[in-house]
Structure formats: C-alpha cells, structure tokens
C-alpha cells in the first residue's frame, strides 16, 4: 500500500489507480469524475465515469462498448495535455487497437502506467495496432499477466503456420474450423494473421461488431462473412469460424456440423490448461508480453522503481528486487484472481461476448 503523503504520481485508492496532483484516475474500477482509459477491454474501461480520456485510435471501440453518449476526449499518441500541472501523454502499448501507456510528468518526475501491453520480437509485430513504444521514466507501472519464466512466446509466424495447417487439414476433410479467442483484439489479430486463401472466414456477431471499429480505424482485415448473411450453408464446410470462447459447447457451434475446435490464448502454453479447455487444439497466441518481453520492456524504460499490477505480482516484485530495482505492487481489480486460476472462466451456454473480456 502506497501512502498518499509521498510524492508519488500514482497511488492506490479504493476506486482505482489515482494521480493525486492531477486529480484523475487511470482505468478505475468504480465510477469517478475523471478517468484516463488505457484500452477498451471490459475490466479496464468501465461504465459510469463522468469524463473519459483515451487515445484517438481507441474511440471507435470504446464508444461501441460503453455507448456513443459517453463524455470522451481523445488524444493522438504522443500529444501532451496539461491537467492541473501534470503533463499527460499517451503512447502505444501494442496490446489491442488504441491501447496506451499513460505518461505523467510532474515536479521533475516521470511516471508511466502501462495498462496491458504486448512486446514483440523483431519482425513479429501485431499488425492490428501500433507497436509498443518504450518510454523513459523514473517509475514504471507494469502488468504481470504472464510474469513467470515459463511464458515465452514462439514467433507468431510459427503460430500462424500451425493455425493455417490445422485449418487446411480440416477443410480438406470437409470440417469447419472453430477458432475461439477474445472478440476484441485476439479475434482481429487472428483474422489479420491467417492465410485467407485457404477458405471462407465466418465470424460471430461479437467479433463482427469489433471488426467494424477496426476497419473504420483503417486496420486491414481479410473479407469475412457474418454468419447471418451466409445463405449458401455449403460454404461453412471448410470455413474458419472465429468466435469468442463463450460459444464453446453452445448450440451456436452446432450450426457448423462437427467442427474441429481450437482456442488461441497465451494460457494454451501449458498442457494442463489445454486439457481443461477440452478443445482439439490450443494455439499459444497472446496479446500480453511474455516473461522476456516484460523484462525487456521494464529495462527499456530505464526506471529505477517498478510497481507491478495484475498477474504474478509477488514473483515479479521479488525478481526485480533481486535485480537491484526498487519494486512494489499495487492491488488492482483487473481480474487478477482469474490469472491465478490460469484461465478465464468458461461460459458454457451463452453466445454473449460480454463475459469473456479482460484477461486476454
């Protein structure tokens, strides 16, 4: 727990992470007057705040999820605004469309709150959003979703090769390929990464809504069919079906006959998680930094102080302290107990996409 009496630019409050000199919150979990939103996933962007500030690129998704009538001000990446003497700017986090790190400068100190972020290896960028940009700072607030050395991602090219091979083999056998992933972020990354020449691509309604926002923001996605628009059901054999995890085991899936099913998530790295999911295949594809990525990102900030949030806080704090950094943790309400459980809960009987956000 951080004391309010310190000179810290961000402290923990019951409503969320709070900037005392600027009098605003970052991704608050309870309604407040002023909220800076790092990205539009449900556990970071909540309803009920009086004023929202977010990146220009996140506007479409944010409005589609929180409503057109929210009081939203947007900022292009890198542009600085001054609020109560705090210089605030947003910088790409590479996680999903519009995701930002929040840079705060006040009284000669610079703090950066990262929200969720993805750091890619060379030539391995997430093509659906602007890549993570390291920002020098004195104190870096980092997530730790995959903060264990067992999480080390393969180059995503290899993952997409695997997905394509699986899809191709199913298509040849006359089966649809149901690939489940979060409807906001993961689904678009899948669409942008697969080889669309293999067959038609059908998307779930929850994915379709987000696709519109992505396309409107200028992100290139291959042509997709919305299930309700498919008149020739014969097309469905051999199709790739992209849907949120909540469809697993639901009647919605049975429209596609007996599809081979798969799940795309960083959690699929572990055999136990794959087997618990009960799907044919698990593809390790994450929008969060892996262990080496977290270390690289922290190092690139040059920060001497690091505050760890949601995920493996205790592990990361001890590791960073052993490396000689000043490290501590904030308790946040970004689905951390789910991380402990290794995977988000499975919603068996709903086609709603509302329940599956956040963790990845």
């Amino acid at each position, binding site marked *: 727990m951080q004391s309010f009496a310190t000179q810290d630019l961000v402290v923990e409050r019951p409503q969320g992470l709070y900037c005392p000199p600027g009098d605003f919150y970052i991704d608050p979990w309870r309604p407040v007057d002023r909220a800076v939103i790092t990205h539009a996933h449900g556990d970071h962007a909540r309803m009920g705040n009086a004023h929202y500030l977010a990146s220009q690129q996140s506007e479409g998704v944010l409005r589609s999820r929180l409503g057109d009538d929210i009081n939203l001000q947007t900022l292009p990446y890198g542009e600085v605004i001054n609020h109560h003497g705090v210089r605030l700017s947003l910088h790409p986090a590479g996680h999903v469309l519009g995701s930002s790190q929040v840079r705060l400068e006040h009284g000669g100190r610079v703090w950066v709150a990262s929200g969720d972020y993805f750091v890619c290896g060379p030539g391995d960028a997430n093509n659906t959003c602007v890549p993570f940009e390291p920002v020098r700072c004195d104190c870096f607030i980092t997530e730790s979703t995959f903060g*264990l050395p067992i999480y080390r991602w393969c180059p995503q090219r290899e993952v997409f090769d695997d997905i394509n091979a699986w899809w191709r083999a199913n298509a040849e056998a006359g089966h649809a390929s149901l690939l489940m992933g979060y409807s906001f972020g993961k689904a678009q990354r899948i669409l942008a990464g697969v080889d669309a020449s293999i067959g038609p691509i059908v998307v779930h309604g929850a994915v379709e809504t987000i696709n519109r926002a992505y396309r409107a923001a200028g992100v290139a996605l291959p042509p997709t069919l919305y299930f309700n628009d498919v008149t020739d059901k014969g097309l469905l054999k051999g199709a790739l079906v992209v849907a949120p995890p909540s469809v697993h085991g639901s009647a919605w899936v049975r429209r596609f006959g007996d599809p081979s099913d798969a799940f795309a998530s960083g959690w699929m790295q572990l055999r*136990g998680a794959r087997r618990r999911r009960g799907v*044919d295949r698990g593809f390790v594809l994450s929008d969060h930094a892996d262990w080496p990525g977290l270390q690289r990102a922290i190092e690139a900030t040059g920060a001497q102080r690091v505050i760890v949030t949601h995920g*493996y806080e205790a*592990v990361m704090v*001890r*590791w960073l302290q052993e490396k000689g950094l000043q490290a501590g943790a904030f308790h946040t309400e970004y689905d951390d107990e789910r991380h402990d459980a290794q995977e988000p809960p499975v919603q068996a009987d709903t086609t709603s996409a509302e329940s599956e956000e956040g963790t990845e």
Partner: protein
Amino acid sequence: MRRFSQLFNELDASTATTAKVQALKRYFAEVDDADAAWAVYFLAGGKPRQVVPTGVLRALACQLAGIAEWLFEECYQAVGDLAETIAHVLPPAPSLSDVRLAQWVEQRLLPLRELAPEEQALRIAAYWNELDPSGRFLLTKLIGGGFRVGVSKLLVQRALAEHAGLDAKVVAQRMMGFTDKTARPSADGFRQLISRDAIGNTDSGQPYPFFLAHAIEGLHESFHDWLGPPADWIVEWKYDGIRAQIVKRAGIVWIWSRGEELMTERFPEVVNLAQGLPDGTVLDGEILVWKGDAPAPFALLQQRIGRKLLTKKVLADAPVTFMAYDLLEWQGEDVRPWPQAKRREQLEAVVAVANSMLLSPMVAGTTWPELVTLREESRQRGVEGFMLKHREARYGTGRTKAEGTWWKWKIDPLSVDAILIYAQAGHGRRASVYTDYTFAVWNRKPSDAGEAQAVIEAIATRQPADPDGLQLVPFAKAYSGLTDEEFREVDRIIRQTTLEKFGPVRSVKPTLMFELGFEGINRSTRHKSGIAVRFPRMLRIRNDKPLHEADTLQTLEELLDGRAAW
C-alpha cells in the same frame, strides 16, 4: 524424437479413441522397428529405472535458465509438472536435431546411468539444447522415469493389431512382459509382436491377459430378471489383495502382477506353493496376507509391495499365501475357452494336490435376497463384497463382456461428513486448480451451532486452538469424486476463504462439508487423529448440513469397532 513427439502431441490433443488409434498406426507405419519397439514400450506403460534423480534435473534447469530455486518453484506450482516446467524455463534451443527415438534411448539415455553426476549434467544440458519444448518435455519425462500418456495398453494393442492385421488378443498375449523392468525392447522384439507366424509360448513364462470385472453399483431389486437365478453363477468373496497369475512351465514358476510386472522374486512363499503344480499350469488368483482363517488388512500386504529385500522380519510379519480362483492353462492347453464351471471343477482338483494353496470358496445362496444378506458380512470377513462369475463365461481379455461376464459387487463404502481445512493444487490436468483437500472432524460433538461457529471464527482470525476445547482434527486427504464443475466451484470458494499460504498449501476458513467415503479404517500411530482410512474420496458436497453437524472422532472410533478384530 521429433516424430515421437509429434505422436505424443497427437495422442495428447485428442480425446477420440479412433483418432488415437489412427495416430498410432501412422506412427508404426512410418518409423523403423527399433523406434516402434521403444514407442510401444513407453506408451504401454514401460518405465526404465530412473536414470537421473529429479533434484539433479531441477538444479540443472535452474542453472541453465539463470533463475533461482524459488522462481523455479513458483513456475512448478503454476505448471504442475516437473518435466513441463523444465521444458518451458530453458532458453530456446539454438538449433534442433532429429535423432531417432531408439538412438535417444539406447545410445544416450540408458548410458547416462553409468556416468558420474557431473558428466550426466553436461550431457543432459547438451541434449536439452537440441530440442524444442515438446521434445524437451518428453526427454525429461523419459530421463525422470515419469512418462505417462493418455492411451491405455489396450489401445496400443488395438493399433498394433490393426497395423499388423492380427487379432488384438494375440498381440495382447505377445505383449505380456514387454514392458517389464528387465525387458529390453528391440527391432526383433517388435517384429515378433506383429509377426504373422504363430509364436509358441509353452517354453516361456508368458502369462495370459487378465480378465477384468465390471462393477455393479448398490442393490438391485430386479437382480433375478437381470442376472437370472443365482444357480447360473459362481459367487465368491472379493478379496483385497494383489491380483496375480502363477505360471508353471518346464519346472519353472513365474508370478505376474496385473500390471504385467514379474513379481516372482518378491513372493517366495507363493513360489513354494506353486512348485507342486504340474508343468503346463496357469492359475489366476489373489496374493494375500492370511492370519488365522481370514485375510489381514491390506496395510500389512502393502509392506510387501515394492520391497525388493525381504528380511526375516518382513516375512514373519506379513507372510503371504495364494488364493486361487481360476485355471487358464492345464496340461499345456489354453483352457480359457472352457466355461467357467468346467474350469472351476478342474481348478478344485489342481488345488487339492497343491501344497496348502487356498481355494477361493464358493458362496452358497439360492436366492438373490439371501445373497444380499450374506454380503452384509463382507466387512466382518475382511473382504470387499462379492464376485459373480457366470457358469458359462469364457475367460476374456481385459474389461470385456464379449466372452461372458464377471461382476464385482462391492459393499458400500464407509462414510463420514468431514470439513475441508486445507487445499493444494493438483497436477497435470488439474494444475493450478485446488483439487487436493485435507479433511477434519470435530474432536467431540459441538454442544451447539454457536460453539462450533466460535471455533471457526477463532481459526479465521488465527487464534491458537484451545487444546482442551472443541477442535477440528485432520484425518484424511482426498482428491477425487467431484465433477470438473464441482471442482471449479470448490476452487473458487477456496480462493475466497484462504487464510494462509504455506508453499503450495492453503489453509481456508472452514465453510465446506463433504461426505467422504472410504474402503477401510485402521488405527495409525502416524496420523494425528490416530486413524488411517483406505481409499478416501469425496462422495458429495454437503451443502445441506450445518458445520456443527459434521462427524466426530467418536464416529470414526465406532467405525473402527464395527469391523472385525484382526
């Protein structure tokens, strides 16, 4: 290794039997016989002696990954499997090799045993460095002796039989002993498994595949309609010992376990008994510790399991005998196709001349209700219930009903209502889910709900227990019996009610009660409660009962007194 690792991933990913069989057949068709031999050995449950101690593998992995022991431990807790943890923490391999499975085992893994620890570490580090994570996972499993995969031996046999165009039973018989500790899989051995030519086994110690029983649950009103009259059945007590086959051929005795392990050296008393059998005889039965005229509790027999060195004391404390109940070979002839009644008749004649071997008695009962009443005596007699064998039944292979049926009709387990106080995450599929629980009963009956609640609040606020007052006493651990959904729900409650974490174990505020079932109960000096239970498992969650109505140490004492005095 790459091809074997692909096979492993295919088997691991699929839950469909036919897909697994297809994957196995593709593998057998593609690889050479030496690789296939080792694959069959490992997939069917063969385990070479552990080559390198687990601690050495752990330390080496930490060193290569550049992480401290505590961080490795955190990883292990998340993964729930040592080999998989190692596979993921190691830095990526600079380049991948493709050495064949047989070469891996014969030229690299088996020779490790003879090497000094430093040399072992050097070599293993180099091996890890030429494999991808799934290759490393498999290699580490093979080195550590903990290789397990989601296929049954029966499935491997089916795939081999389909691959070779043979009857699966023939393959099953040829595979007997194939995974024994002393076995050394080879290309020749594999060719024999799938050979189209008949291979006689009269001059070897090969046993027959065991015939396994199906379970009857509880009581059945319509027994007569369903099974016909009891006169159609041979009814025997179900003994809780070690299922074994005695093979006597060419003057030599072999004793095989149901796991197809050769146990001859472990049970010299049984070898003595079998010396009197004529050559060309194979018996099926149970190894038991026998005291007076009843079997001793399984705990005593347990002292003999896994023990290689038999001291005089062990032999005196836990002397074993053999209780015969079936005859599989007689005068060198395979008599498994004979009807059960005919085999039984011949068995009686055989045992009559064998020196003091026991014959499983037939239970007389002319009606099913009469047998139901007799079955109530099971616990007093130290048996698990009844075995029902149809008089016309052939001796089948495995758990099949094709040749006639054996039923096991076990008595209901003992049960108590107990309170969950500690939880630990499981392994494998259950890694990171709290599935292993410690249960407690009250040391005496709480006077009312208020007294029980006060003790629970004291635990929740971590006050030391009053040694003279009401307490919860741990007495059993259990990790099975719930559905995945129930486990998820209990896992959620455990996370919400966690009081303290001791490494992988969490203590929780007592809020959950379960009905625990177990097969037997004994006094124990090793447990705080003074009691040890056998095969504890969860029968159901008792949401319907308040915590102060959980059972007490006294309930357990009464269960102890209820069983026969051994």
